[in-house]
């Protein structure tokens, strides 16, 4: 046993992790080496002192402050959109199904959202009869449809972000950093695709459906990442 060995094994020795022979060899070295003996004794004194540190008493008002924050969180939950309540109810059945579950979750989420919109539309009063010949051109109709699809993707992403935000508190800092990096990558891709499709540099996008495929693929990739994170699959995608 040499001084370098003692320096390397001191913690294991003090924590009782060395076998009898190694412990004996270490103690034998300490009998003849003052420097190593001081090193080990100092470490033992530190471990002893650390174990004897007094418990720290929190301030008396801490519990009241925690109750206030819980109350605020419950009020915030009550004010969330209905889709959030649906998601929370469905989540236990989707969690643990990995990528298939995440994809199913995203599909269900979008279907439920569209069903909600259809129900809302069905409940609207029947509009009065209009002239059979519409003044809207085919191009305008297609532009309107593409615009509605774009808006629905963005709204779905925004709602999934809000759901994921409630999950983040339980993640480790490493998981948060990895997720944020992946999301930032997809955000940049969406921004780049929208810039490519932009008409005259504004918010209006070109009405070529085929030209929008890369943008919609980016939206779907982001929805996949968010829906996977919402069911706890942070390593997905």
């Amino acid at each position: 046993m040499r001084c370098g060995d003692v320096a390397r094994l001191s913690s294991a020795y003090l924590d009782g992790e060395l076998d009898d022979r190694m412990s004996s060899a270490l103690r034998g070295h300490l009998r003849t080496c003052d420097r190593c003996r001081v090193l080990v004794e100092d470490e033992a004194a530190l471990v002893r002192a650390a174990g004897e540190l007094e418990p720290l008493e929190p301030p008396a008002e801490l519990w009241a402050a925690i109750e206030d924050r819980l109350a605020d969180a419950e009020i915030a939950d009550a004010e969330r959109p209905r889709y959030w309540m649906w998601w929370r109810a469905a989540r236990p059945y989707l969690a643990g199904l990995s990528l298939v579950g995440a994809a199913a979750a995203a599909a269900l989420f979008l279907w439920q959202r569209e069903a909600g919109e259809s129900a809302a539309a069905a409940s609207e009063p029947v509009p009065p009869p209009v002239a059979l010949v519409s003044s809207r051109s085919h191009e305008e109709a297609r532009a309107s449809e593409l615009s509605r699809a774009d808006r629905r993707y963005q709204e779905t992403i925004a709602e999934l972000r809000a759901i994921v935000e409630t999950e983040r508190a339980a993640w480790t800092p490493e998981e948060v950093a990895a997720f944020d990096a992946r999301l930032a990558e997809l955000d940049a891709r969406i921004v780049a695709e929208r810039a490519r499709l932009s008409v005259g540099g504004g918010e209006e996008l070109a009405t070529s459906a085929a030209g929008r495929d890369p943008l919609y693929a980016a939206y779907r990739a982001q929805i996949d990442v968010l829906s996977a994170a919402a069911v706890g699959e942070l390593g997905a995608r």
Partner: protein
Amino acid sequence: MKSSVLSDKPARLAVVRPRSRSGADAAADDDGALIEACRRGERRAMEALYHRYKRRVFGLVTRIVGAGDAEEVAQEVFVRIFRGLGKFRGDAALSTWIYRLSVNAALSHVTRRPKPMEGEEVLAQLPAPARAPRDPTLSARLEEALAALPVGYRSVLVLHDVAGLSHEECAEILGCRVGTSKSQLHKARAKMRDLLGADLAAERRGEVG
């Protein structure tokens, strides 16, 4: 026969002290009933759970983030505990799960705030009146030295040496391997020996309590 450097006296040897778990083994059954009551939103159960774990959480958080931010982070930890009890599956001890939430919240807080000074600069920067009269005990100086450790070393040392957790528990809480926990602790203790060199020498000479 080899003689020690201290000729007529046998060399004093450090005693290996068996680690004892400070976990809540005896209270595991109690924890189960308390968890169920908390999940039902029973306020008295929630307050009981708070009082059962408040010192462990507050102590751990204070020693990682410092006294200035400890109360805020401890609030965050307990909100996460009560809001997250539905996710607690019972595959680890409740205390281990609570420690994990505490460490995650503390480390998140540390990484979010401006990087503090680490190392001896922290000790050197303390104003003279705050350092004298100084509590001479090694424990008091140890608290100051803990604050000067890099946060990774500080976390494992607080969990293992202060809270008395095993390396298996530390590894589960910190999300690392057991070997990593051991090597980090070894380095943390070495760093503490550097920071407290003079105090340890005085301790050896019997000059402090």
